[in-house]
């Protein structure tokens, strides 16, 4: 028997199947370009002998001059990383 509501039910199922993800997923994804840009800049910075020399003397200043925010976590990670260099 033909169900007259079937096409509408199919439309609803399709909308549910392709529902947008939670807002916080999209907000996190929106930060990706900036995060990836920061990581790229960070890699370039770490490769610079001038930066490494400056960082050993004045870490916060060196990070700021490289255009990065000298957060405690970043400074700690850089210290760990540069010890290995």
């Amino acid at each position: 028997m033909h169900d007259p509501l079937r096409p509408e039910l199919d439309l609803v199922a399709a909308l549910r199947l392709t529902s947008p993800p939670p807002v916080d997923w999209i907000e996190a994804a929106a930060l990706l370009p900036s995060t990836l840009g920061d990581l790229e800049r960070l890699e370039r910075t770490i490769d610079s002998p001038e930066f490494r020399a400056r960082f050993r003397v004045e870490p916060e200043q060196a990070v700021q001059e490289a255009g990065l925010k000298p957060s405690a976590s970043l400074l700690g990670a850089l210290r760990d990383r540069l010890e290995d260099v």
Partner: protein
Amino acid sequence: MEQHAPLINGMLRGAFRLAAYDAEDAFQEVLTRVYLRLGTIREASALRSWIAQITRNVALDVLRRGGREVSADQALVEQRYSEPLLAVEQAMTIRDALDRLPDHQREILDRFFVRDESYRTIAATMDLPPGTIASRISRALAALRTEFEGPGKITRG
């Protein structure tokens, strides 16, 4: 990129059946790959199928990392997921039709069918009389059907 979020989410959750926490990580991984390689895309029209391909690869990686059995045989993988992936692809054409509806119709369908909001919540949020919500949903759904199928293809009963 937000416009492609329903496709990515639909594939990860609907076709590959990833758990929410896996899907969230996979969603970010897909978009990371997209951002890193966006410059390699020449044709804007190819963007959706390119993102779908990346999503598929990421989902299969997640399944393998999670210890889920994913055949190394490409043909078997295609066979297992082709039907649910096709369903998502077809569903996206309906979502495209939804995006072409007037804002008020799109919003009421989204609130009722996707976000599962009650008539009362919808009425309060959209500043509408509560008694009109059911008929507005019905009209919006009919409009979506017309938009999707075209006015000449509607058959009733």
